[in-house]
């Protein structure tokens, strides 16, 4: 098979041999900041940044060492130690084009966001703790993508979940933040359970969890389909895909850099990583599992876009957009090797422009006394020039303005989807049109039109430590997509890791879907201009049509969850409690009481008298001797 992925080679020495340093640096940072807590208050944020940068440097060096190898040898496994010897599970790292791409994104964008946070969190008295959690996140995320087996991946997976939980609830004095953190935790648990059960099935079926030992499957059967769907459930939880999307919008309660790093650029893309990494094993091209991935992606990209249209909270609007964009990636990831390169490409460019947009939104909030309601913005372009310029570049990139980053990767996904399945392709086109509308709406409401500021707002540009990362990110948003997609650069680079034909797909500048997409985007943007640029934006949210309410309420996702799961769940618990009290408790309490009672009774043997103890020893000795004599005569 020509699309087979390359063999994994054992590797020692060099930078790749010490790739664990990538994980160790931020982990050490988190450790120092958490253990020596307030002693590090003064320089803690600098340490956090340094550790993230150090990790980035290692990633870059490892990248250059990796491309020094021939194409077939670019999957290097580094053995670290034997983790669970009896189950033959070793802890090791896999440095291959896929994982190093992620590592570069995580450490690169991660470092920029660390730097930005110095300014953003400068007034927070718990800034040190914030950096500790950010470092912890970076370490866990790197473990997730670098591990050479599902166990390591799962540990990282849970680690990022923990970091996400801690950071969403970072301002836990706000009840909304605490609730959001809990919701994210619970919803993710559903997904994690899927991943965990998937791993169990993999282990019982193949007796290994290592990527090197699993063999690409040739034909799908019931077991691989089940594994694929279970892994997809895990991916849906972490990547906020339907039906486990509801936590992401609430997760915006966390500080904005967190939204940018974890809930836009990196962690939420872990699901895409999981699918692509498992692609050769459990999502072969044309399989039912892969189709399920693509359908979930297409559905989510529309749902996210519709939600994004109705949000007045700038961060929630961006969160809807994140859902939607990850939907694109999922769609790409469900198309087999041809889609992988575009999915990962979109993931990388999205990492840049979405981080850019989020940090831009953070910069706006910073200047507007933490106001998030776009109805209270307006006309900010004049007051925050750098923020506006960078935000605008991010905006053009995400709507797929020709020749910017998002254009190449999104068009790529649409094109690949068209080849695969016309329906999915046209849904993706429609999604792009809606993106054009809601992103334009956001830009117009924020930066153009009349000032609708609340009293006491004095918008001002943010300090350089915040705008510098914005500038760097917007450069990525401008050019990265073209670089990755043109000539199949990323495709060729990723091929050893994810498979695919030797010839990269050609990017068509002129195609019917492409033209329709651009037209729809233009219509969306124009409509947004009419409604939110030229016309007056009411300062109070109007009632809106049925459709608007539908979108505002997150497509009734929460209502659905509540009526489908929460209420029946509560009923179920009530019924269970009823039976528990009547039936089970009798047994369990009986058992517990039995143990407790025997404990109490046995306890009386412990009289405290040496003579009783001696007697027990004597009787024991007599029994032992008697028993052995008896055994001896048998």
């Amino acid at each position, binding site marked *: 098979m020509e699309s087979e992925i390359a063999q994994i080679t054992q590797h020692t020495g060099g930078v790749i041999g010490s790739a664990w340093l990538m994980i160790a640096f931020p982990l050490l940072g988190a450790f120092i900041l958490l253990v020596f807590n307030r002693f590090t208050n003064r320089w803690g944020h600098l340490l956090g940044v340094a550790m993230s940068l150090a990790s980035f440097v290692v990633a870059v060096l490892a990248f250059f060492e990796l491309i020094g190898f021939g194409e077939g040898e670019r999957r290097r496994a580094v053995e670290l*130690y034997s983790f669970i010897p009896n189950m033959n599970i070793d802890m090791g790292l896999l440095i291959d084009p896929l994982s190093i791409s992620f590592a570069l994104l995580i450490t690169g964008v991660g470092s920029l966001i660390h730097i930005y946070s110095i300014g953003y969190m400068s007034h927070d008295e718990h800034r040190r703790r914030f950096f500790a959690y950010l470092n912890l996140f970076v370490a866990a995320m790197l473990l997730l993508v670098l591990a050479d087996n599902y166990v390591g991946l799962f540990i990282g997976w849970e680690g990022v979940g923990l970091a996400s939980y801690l950071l969403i609830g970072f301002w836990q004095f706000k009840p909304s933040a605490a609730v959001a953190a809990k919701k994210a935790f619970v919803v993710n648990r559903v997904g994690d359970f899927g991943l965990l059960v998937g791993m169990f099935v993999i282990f019982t079926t193949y007796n290994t969890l290592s990527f090197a030992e699993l063999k690409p499957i040739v034909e799908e059967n019931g077991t691989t389909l089940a594994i694929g769907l279970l892994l997809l459930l895990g991916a849906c939880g972490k990547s906020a895909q339907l039906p486990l999307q509801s936590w992401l919008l609430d997760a915006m309660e966390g500080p904005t850099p967190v939204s940018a790093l974890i809930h836009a650029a990196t962690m939420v893309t872990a699901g895409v990583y999981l699918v692509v990494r498992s692609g050769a094993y459990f999502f072969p091209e044309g399989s039912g599992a892969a189709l399920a991935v693509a359908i979930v992606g297409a559905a989510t990209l529309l749902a996210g876009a519709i939600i994004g249209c109705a949000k007045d909270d700038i961060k929630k609007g961006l969160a809807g957009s994140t859902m939607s964009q990850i939907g694109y990636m999922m769609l790409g990831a469900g198309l087999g090797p041809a889609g992988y390169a575009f999915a990962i490409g979109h993931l990388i460019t999205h990492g840049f422009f979405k981080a850019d947009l989020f940090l831009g939104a953070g910069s706006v909030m910073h200047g507007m006394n933490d106001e998030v309601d776009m109805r209270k913005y307006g006309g900010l372009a004049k007051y925050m020039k750098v923020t506006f310029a960078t935000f605008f570049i991010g905006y053009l990139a995400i709507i797929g303005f020709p020749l910017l980053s998002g254009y190449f990767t999104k068009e790529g996904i649409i094109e690949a989807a068209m080849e695969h399945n016309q329906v999915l392709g046209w849904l993706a086109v429609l999604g792009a049109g809606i993106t054009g509308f809601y992103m334009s709406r956001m830009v117009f409401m924020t930066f153009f039109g009349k000032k609708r500021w609340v009293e006491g707002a004095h918008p001002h540009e943010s300090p350089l430590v915040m705008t510098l990362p914005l500038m760097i990110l917007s450069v990525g948003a401008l050019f990265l997509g073209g670089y990755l997609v043109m000539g199949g650069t990323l495709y060729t680079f990723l091929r050893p890791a994810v498979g695919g034909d030797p010839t990269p797909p050609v990017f068509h500048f002129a195609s019917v879907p492409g033209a329709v997409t651009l037209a729809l985007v233009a219509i969306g943007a124009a409509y947004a201009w009419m409604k939110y640029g030229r016309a007056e934006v009411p300062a109070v949210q109007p009632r809106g049509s049925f459709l608007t309410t539908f979108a505002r309420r997150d497509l009734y996702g929460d209502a659905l969850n509540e009526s489908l799961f929460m209420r029946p769940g509560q009923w179920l618990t009530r019924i269970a409690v009823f039976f528990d009290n009547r039936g089970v408790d009798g047994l369990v309490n009986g058992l517990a009481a039995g143990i407790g009672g025997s*404990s109490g009774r046995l306890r009386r043997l412990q009289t405290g008298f040496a003579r009783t103890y001696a007697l027990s020893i004597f009787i024991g*000795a007599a029994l032992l001797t008697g028993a*052995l004599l008896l055994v001896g005569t048998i």
Partner: protein
Amino acid sequence: MNPAIPAPTIEYGTLAPLLVVFGAAVIGVLVEAFAPRYLRKAIHVPLTLLSLAGAFALVLLQVLRGQVPTAPAAMGAVAVDGPSLFIWGVILVLSFVCVLLINDEGHFVASAAAVPGSADEEEAESVSGGVGHTEVYPLVLFAVGGMLLFPASHDLLMMFVALEVMSLPLYLLCGLARRRRLLSQEASMKYFLLGAFSSAFFLYGTAMVYGYAGTVTLPGINRALSSGTGLDPLLMIGFALLGVGLLFKIGAAPFHAWKPDVYQGAPTPITALMASGTLVAAVGAVLRVFWVGLGNLDWNWRPVIWVVAALTMIVGSILAITQTEIKRMLAYSSIAHAGFLLVGVMATFGSAQQNAGSLKAILFYLAVYGITTVGAFAVVTLVRDPGGEAGHLSRWAGLGKRAPVLAGVFAFFLLAFAGIPLTSGFFGKYAVFAAALDSGTQVGDSMGGWMTGLVVVGVVASAIAAFFYVRVIVLMFFSEPAADGPAIAVPSMGTVAVIAVSLLVTVGVGLYPESVLGVADDAARSLFIR
């Protein structure tokens, strides 16, 4: 002419760790006799620590040079082999950290002879009562020397001597608590009486086995077994009585009754030493007797040990539930763990490979359990009431709010005892149970089922045990602190170091079990010298 008495050959190099510890103990006695009182502690502390560290270095040297002897030393009296060296290393590390605890002020009485209830006693308990007995140090060294010799003894008489050298100082040390003198003296007395009683069993068993085999050396007994009829009543009685003596030291049911009383009454650092070092030494001795001395015995005896192991696990974990005193609870926990270790001991009788596998599991378990135990007792020393340590569990309520770090560390140790993954305790239990299941499948049908049954009992006992460990955590973190709660003593550097080391090992081995497992594997591979 006098008949020539051949001079015995002594392998000084091989026995060096033992000789260093005993030598330092003798010097310690001389210090007690001749050094002025105010200088004694200043001499004892470095002497004790240096000798233990030196002995450890000598053990390390032998291992690193690859000079693990293949023949017994000292005219066949002492066997220094891979498992011995591993056990020595573990005991030396454990006793080193225990000495750091002992070194902390205020655990030991100034005058052990003070009669309870007298004016003398009040003086002895008071802080102004002076620095406490400095005899503690040489006594500890003698006990540690005995612990080293006990599992390395190659004949039953040497083993008996080692048993006494280990136990006699411990009997004394138990009675030296500065606080709650009466309890401490009672513990000492009980331990002495019952210890002497069980030693008598051991000695009687030795005599019986000698009557059967005509020798007291372990390989000699084993040879006699292979040539003899095998199941002679004399042998079976001897085997049973030896077993009583050894199982007593482990604290296996029904020979466990001393443990809670003694652990509670003894000064806590000494409890830590007994719960870690003595247990390691005794399990080592059990392994040696069963595996070197009785290796050729038909395995019909196994159902009997099966019952003992199961009973020990059940009694330990069930009785721990109703304990209200922290040290008593830890004592019952120690009994339960002795049961888990016996599961491993049961597993050591299969093919040579199987032996190495389960031996490795036991050695690993001993090392990680020992260090976690010392850490837990070190925490216990820090939670204090006006009258001494706050023993009653109700006093620990809400500790998580008053001293979050200390309570967190203690909670972690408890989780390790319970065997929660990512702690060393998980891998210890896992290794032992896995080895037991393995040996079950190797030995064959009937015994295989028995071993599986034993593991099931072990898992159920672990579940019951988890209850009382977690209950303490719940108590510490989810209860309101008492209004006049116990004070948290400012720990000395030594105590901090002990807790830190225990925590690091417990966490570190939990994340990277291969670190210790690898060493245990190397040690187990060379097996016991037969």
